[in-house]
């Protein structure tokens, strides 16, 4: 049976970690969505250098471990005078990493909007940015929502690696509790529950949004 005294005795630490993980996740979600969408537009923009930048970014950050990005920001940036603590460096790393995946998801969504629509919008006098904002992106978003939801759930779970930067997140608190109490199993089961409290509403929300947008078609 689970030892619930672990949970009650370390409640403050769990809650502190929970709140920090919420902060990291929310900032990460917004940051990586905005940045990822910009990157996606870069990748399909009718301007080659932007394509290259987008492609290089996505292929680079999608293919290296998040752990390395996080540790790099934490330890290497201070040498050039940018001092980010574990929380900031970790959140930034999450944004950098996740936005590469989001860029791919959004790009796929944009490309799935028939080309004729872009051509029609452009020939009716809209600029490229207007075409994107008014015609293509609103349609793409419906297609993009399910894969985007996956990335957001991954982001919340990936935030657990911030423990190596002592970022004060859920996993960090759990590490401290388990090393202090010498209980591993129960401590991490409770952590899993806290993560579920975050991710279940997220996936339910994504499902709901998906259904509603499908109806609006």
């Amino acid at each position, binding site marked *: 049976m689970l030892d619930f005294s672990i949970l009650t005795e370390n409640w403050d630490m769990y809650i502190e970690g929970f709140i920090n993980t919420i902060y990291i996740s929310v900032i990460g979600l917004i940051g990586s969505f905005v940045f990822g969408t910009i990157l996606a537009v870069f990748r399909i923009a009718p301007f080659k250098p932007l394509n290259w930048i987008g492609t290089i970014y996505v292929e680079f950050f999608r293919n290296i471990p998040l752990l390395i990005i996080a540790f790099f920001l934490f330890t290497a940036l201070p040498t050039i005078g940018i001092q980010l603590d*574990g929380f900031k460096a970790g959140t930034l790393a999450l944004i950098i990493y996740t936005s590469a995946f989001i860029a791919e998801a959004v790009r796929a969504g944009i490309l799935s909007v028939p080309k004729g629509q872009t051509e029609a919008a452009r020939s009716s006098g809209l600029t490229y940015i207007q075409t994107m904002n008014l015609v293509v992106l609103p349609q793409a978003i419906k297609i993009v929502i399910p894969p985007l939801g996956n990335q957001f759930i991954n982001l919340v779970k990936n935030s657990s690696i911030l423990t190596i930067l002592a970022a004060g997140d859920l996993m960090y608190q759990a590490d401290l509790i388990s090393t202090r109490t010498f209980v591993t199993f129960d401590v991490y089961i409770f952590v899993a529950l806290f993560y579920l409290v975050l991710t279940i509403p997220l996936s339910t929300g994504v499902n709901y949004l998906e259904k509603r947008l499908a109806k609006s078609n």
Partner: protein
Amino acid sequence: MFKKKKSLLTVLLLAMLSVLMLAACGTKDDSESGSGSGSKESKNSLEAIKEKDKIVFGVKNDTRLFGLKDPKTGNIEGFDIDIAKEITKIILGDESKAEFKEVTSKTRIPMLQKGDIDAIVATMTITEERKQEVDFSDVYFKAGQALLVKKGSPIKSIKDIKKGTKVLAVKGSTSAVNIREKAPDATVLEFENYAEAFTALKAKQGDTLTTDNAILYGMVDEDPNYQVVGDIFTDEPYGIAVKKDSPELVKAINDALKELQSNGKYDELYKKWIKTSN
């Protein structure tokens, strides 16, 4: 079908029996050799050492500054090794009569009790618990928790740790627990291991790093821009361990240690290995 099963059973039974017999042989052997060495020990351990004219020391091979194997030569080098050599020189007259066997924290006491080694000089902290199993010499290295800072840091001792001072430690270490007790105002950040904690200190993610001074001196050895400051604030002194109930050998080692202290050899070795804050 039935017959086949029966023969299988016989084979199994036979196998079990033979295993049992073998096991019985094994224990018999053990007890014999045990009593054999027991009778030999009517001589005290110091005399035994003098008779075989060598001392076998159990040393660490993975601990910077204390006992570290040089991959090129295969020799183990460090403060522990030099102390052991000097002690051998005093007891047996020649430091080449010291022999070294590699031990770990787990194997050292069993190896001592089995007689594989005569003494342990392996960064071993003297504790009441261990005193039940082995005899300890006097302290040969004052180990304990200390602070590591970048040279020029305003932190000179544990008293300088104020509210908001970031102290780096390793997850689950006693040092992390201790520092919270002794400096409750500190913000303690805990990392996976010493390498990461030291990297974080170098990246100015904290003001000071705390753990055993023996490890901190190893970090100073690696990067002289850092220094160990203040006195140790926990007591975990290292001693030389020998088999339980060998007062003669303990006395011989203690006398040797005293001689090393008085003739300056100890200080010389200390300076050779431990680079303090200058």
